[in-house]
């Protein structure tokens, strides 16, 4: 299948974005680059199904996330669980300084369930609308909305951003709140 110059340029321009999405999904730049490569091979084999003029980026993102989930199923849950446990170990309490840094955030992000992480990233960083994200994920718009909302709630908890009163039982949140007030 011949690829037009315009399409080629669009494809090249999409790669940094695809990588960022892949890193967000896998939590590892090594695995992300594998995933991007597999996505490109797949995309190449089915470029004839792509309608030029429609959203190439959404098309590529769809291929990438489907590839991610099919790998996840193949690799089985145990790998993911092991990684989750690892991430949880890494995820020490929110840093002492009042300023959360990028690595704090990333540690929290990888702890989200993949479907929540995916929805949050598509809508909150990749620049897709809820409708586009729903199309990419093959689910209803309402499902995306609730995943994004759950993702935010969970991140707020993990990062200790929860307002104090809802977390009286959490000594850490209580400490943070006290410190903020003091």
């Amino acid at each position: 299948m011949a690829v037009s110059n315009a399409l080629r340029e669009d494809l090249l321009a999409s790669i940094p974005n695809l990588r960022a999405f892949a890193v967000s999904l896998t939590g590892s730049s090594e695995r992300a680059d594998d995933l991007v490569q597999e996505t490109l091979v797949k995309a190449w084999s089915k470029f004839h199904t792509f309608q030029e003029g429609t959203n190439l980026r959404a098309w590529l993102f769809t291929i990438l996330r489907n590839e991610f989930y099919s790998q996840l199923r193949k690799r089985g849950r145990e790998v993911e669980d092991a990684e989750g446990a690892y991430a949880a170990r890494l995820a020490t309490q929110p840093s002492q300084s009042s300023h959360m840094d990028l690595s704090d955030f990333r540690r929290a992000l990888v702890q989200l369930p993949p479907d929540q992480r995916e929805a949050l990233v598509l809508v909150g960083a990749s620049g897709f609308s809820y409708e586009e994200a729903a199309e990419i994920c093959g689910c209803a718009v309402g499902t995306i909305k609730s995943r994004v909302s759950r993702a935010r709630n969970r991140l707020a908890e993990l990062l200790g951003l929860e307002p104090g009163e809802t977390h009286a039982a959490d000594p850490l949140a209580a400490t943070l709140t006290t410190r903020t007030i003091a």
Partner: protein
Amino acid sequence: MTKVRRGSRGAPKKKKKGDTMYMGHGSEDPAKPPIDSRIQHEIGKHLRAHYDDVISEPVPDRIMELLEKLEQSVAQKR
């Protein structure tokens, strides 16, 4: 390990995919009020910082090499 997909009737999308993935978290209580806008803003800011940080990285050589190979394979076929 063989998996038998029951009742899908050839439908490509499995809507129930994520259903088993977020068990055990306390955040899905529908009664829980939405987080306030300050926290939402804070999360959005960090999410974009994380994302933009990856975007600004140069595309690895192995990806560019793969693209060249893909294009050559097309050129050869024609």
